[in-house]
């Protein structure tokens, strides 16, 4: 087995954050390597360095091995969204990446292309119509198209395929087809790096696992030298004494929000009770339904709630954002750029947008003085930097944008504060400030629901955490038994539909 790719002492520093710290690893020919770790552990940073999106710190080395003929290893990346054009057929998608040269304006050789596409797909175990738009294919089939395209036209055998969470969107039946395709890739002599949160799949597929935690390489172990529990422990770290960030009164009395039978695209069913002053987390891997809970409750995503009570009062109809806000619910979305803020508008305008009525002056106009004074107050309270409320919010750092988004909702004195990934893309300093704001809101009597993939944060901030897996509640942890490790273990739990017998099938080599 020859070595294809090696990284030596790779570090990456962002302002205020060391994302990777001296990571060394290698990938050999025909080898399937799983890259594991929690959100924010540095996995994606490493992949982006390999892809050339980020430059590593000085002293880091990425070595692409050469063979005797002087062929350098090529890297191929398949991201979660696959990068296919949905309205084009498999044939056309396969053709997209190919250099055109002289044939650019010649009629496409339809039959030859079709035969070629079918052969390529069949090579990875695909058996479907290559002429229909890829958006009509099953998710696993689309992944196969992406793999076939990445590996199409190898002129030499030295290749490494990097797959970023290829199974996140797949049903368990489809996973098997995808794994067959990945094994075929390895059998042809390529190296495979794949990132996944589903440990049972990792155990089934990987020849070797590499575990990162907080930017540091924790483990690099061969197949057979670990089991499920070992991986959980490696990923989550040892259970240390966790400093409680803040204290709350124990949940009691009537819940401020009580939702029974929340359902959505990825949520089968979930019940949530939220009390005054309580901080509740929802955790789970990507695709577990975690990312939809807050959206459905706020009425920002399609879905339904069988029975919803606010302050004990039953709500008959399904809420939309406007009604939700009127009833004292606030929602901080995960995607600030698309949903959280109007980037072209100033901090001041963003901050006051949900509630302008209180700023009304004469003739139905906005009172500029009142607005500026109120905004200046909030800018100071959240510690916005630089403290320039007239600057377009798009020019601020992620952490400061999030402070504004949070401030715009706290200004409404919400009864219920729903948040998706509140610290995504936020630097360490701003993170602390945001948690402080959340604690203040809870202390003021709001019920806070935080949906996040970051188990560590949830274990620090929350009083109680609901763990989701495959669209249903997989477990609940509350203080004092709440710990990062327990959350990770629960969210990575073996899915009941995966028969253990399958896990033992050795990878054909």
């Amino acid at each position, binding site marked *: 087995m020859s070595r294809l790719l090696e990284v030596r002492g790779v570090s990456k520093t962002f302002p205020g954050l060391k994302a990777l710290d001296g990571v060394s690893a290698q990938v050999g020919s025909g080898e399937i390597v799983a890259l594991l770790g929690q959100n924010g552990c540095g996995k994606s940073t490493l992949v982006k360095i390999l892809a050339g999106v980020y430059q590593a710190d000085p002293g880091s080395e990425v070595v692409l091995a050469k063979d005797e003929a002087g062929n350098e290893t090529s890297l191929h990346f398949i991201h979660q969204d696959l990068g296919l054009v949905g309205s084009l057929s498999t044939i056309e998608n396969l053709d997209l990446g190919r250099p055109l040269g002289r044939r650019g304006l010649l009629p496409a050789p339809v039959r030859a292309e079709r035969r070629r596409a079918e052969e390529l797909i069949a090579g990875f175990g695909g058996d479907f119509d290559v002429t229909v738009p890829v958006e009509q294919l099953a998710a696993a089939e689309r992944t196969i198209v992406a793999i076939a395209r990445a590996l199409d036209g190898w002129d030499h055998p030295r290749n490494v395929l990097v797959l970023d969470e290829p199974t996140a969107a797949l049903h368990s039946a489809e996973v098997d087809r995808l794994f067959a395709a990945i094994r075929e890739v390895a059998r042809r002599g390529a190296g495979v790096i794949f990132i996944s949160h589903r440990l049972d799949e990792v155990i089934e597929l990987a020849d070797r696992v590499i575990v990162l935690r907080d930017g540091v390489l924790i483990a690099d172990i061969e197949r057979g030298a670990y089991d499920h529990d070992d991986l959980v422990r490696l990923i989550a770290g040892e259970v240390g004494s966790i400093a409680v960030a803040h204290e709350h009164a124990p949940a009691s009395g009537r819940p401020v929000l009580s939702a029974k039978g929340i359902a959505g695209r990825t949520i089968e069913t979930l019940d949530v009770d939220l009390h005054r002053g309580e901080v509740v987390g929802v955790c789970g891997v990507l695709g577990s339904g975690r990312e939809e809970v807050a959206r459905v409750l706020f009425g920002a995503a399609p879905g339904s709630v069988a029975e919803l009570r606010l302050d004990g009062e039953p709500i008959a109809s399904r809420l939309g954002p406007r009604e939700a806000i009127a009833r004292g619910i606030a929602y901080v979305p995960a995607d600030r750029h698309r949903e959280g803020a109007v*980037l072209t508008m100033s901090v001041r305008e963003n901050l006051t947008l949900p509630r302008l009525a209180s700023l009304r002056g004469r003739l139905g106009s906005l009172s500029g003085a009142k607005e500026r004074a109120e905004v200046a107050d909030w800018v100071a309270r959240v510690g916005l930097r630089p403290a320039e409320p007239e600057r377009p919010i798009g020019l601020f750092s992620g952490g400061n944008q999030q402070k504004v988004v949070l401030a715009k909702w706290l200004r409404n004195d919400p009864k219920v504060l729903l948040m998706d990934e509140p610290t995504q893309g936020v630097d360490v300093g701003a993170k602390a400030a945001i948690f402080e704001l959340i604690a203040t809101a809870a202390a003021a009597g709001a019920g806070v629901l935080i949906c996040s993939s970051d188990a560590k944060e949830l274990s620090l901030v929350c009083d109680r955490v609901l763990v989701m897996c495959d669209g249903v509640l997989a477990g609940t942890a509350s203080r004092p038994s709440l710990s990062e490790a327990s959350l990770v273990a629960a969210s990575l739990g073996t899915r009941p539909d995966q028969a253990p017998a399958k896990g033992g099938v050795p990878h054909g080599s």
Partner: protein
Amino acid sequence: MEASHPPLHRRILAALSFRNISAIYIFVVIFITFSLWVPDTFLKLDTWKAMIDSQAVTAVLAVGLVIALSARAFDLAIGAELGLGAVLVSWLLVNKGLAIPVAIGLTLLVGALVGLVNGLLIVRVKIDSFIATLGMSSVLLAMIAWVSDSQQILGLPDGFQKLGTTEILGLTLPVYLMLAVALVVWYVLERTPAGRRVYATGGNIDAARLAGVRVSLVTVGALVSCGMIAAFAGCLVSANLGAGDPTIGPAYLLPAFSSAFLGSTQFRGGRFNVWGTVVAVYVLATGVKGLQLAGAPVWIPDLFNGAALLLAVGLAKYEATASRAGAVARLLRLDRGRGGGMPGATAAGSAR
């Protein structure tokens, strides 16, 4: 940079920068050029009076368009809406013999209805505003031909014509009406919660919806106001000409768009705004006038307005990327300040 209020002289300098008021500088250049080229005709007071009068209608229309564009709805039917207003008010006055206020009121109502249909096509049927209003403009042109029989409608009552020709302090009434419309639209867009919501909807419709803004209502409302103002501009055209001309509408489309986009690069840093648009209307008209006086051929206005639209949009895009580049530069400086450095060439340079 850290202070929330930069010193006064810095603020004045920023206000006078080319980026903020480029149209004023362009105007100065145009003015000097034609003053030297055709001083006899260009520098005459009558030339300027005539131009200010004749452009008032364009300015009214462009101000209406600003509302739609601020909500990010392209109203390509705005020329035809003006044409319909012009013909309809004449038809109501001449063929139906209605009283002047009634005829104008009905015309404005029809303009609002057209805007309502535009808006519903966009928010309910979910047709892109570009296509919805393009289709609507063709429908309106057909309606204009039907109402007017493709003939000029003559014999408008004197009282109505006075609306377009009465002079106050040397300028005709439409100029003052234009200023009144501009004042109202400016007030609503920039000084009221409603206006804030229009800009938020145009800036990021998803974020606005999640902040509780009724984005469909805002879009429909913007198009209704836009249609109503276009119909009003049509009334002014007919009053000024003394006839309902069925061919007049489409010629106003491009100047309105050029002005609104050029206006968006003025004063408010890339945001569509009323006063920038009014200034832009007159800057563009001055250029066209000068070229005409210098003996340029009749197709010059088309060329000038088209080129101005492309230039204005290009300028707006450039400005957007320039401010983005500025933000990136700041971030890089910040990065360097924290002790980063040039990354090693071996790191990622060889990957891929």
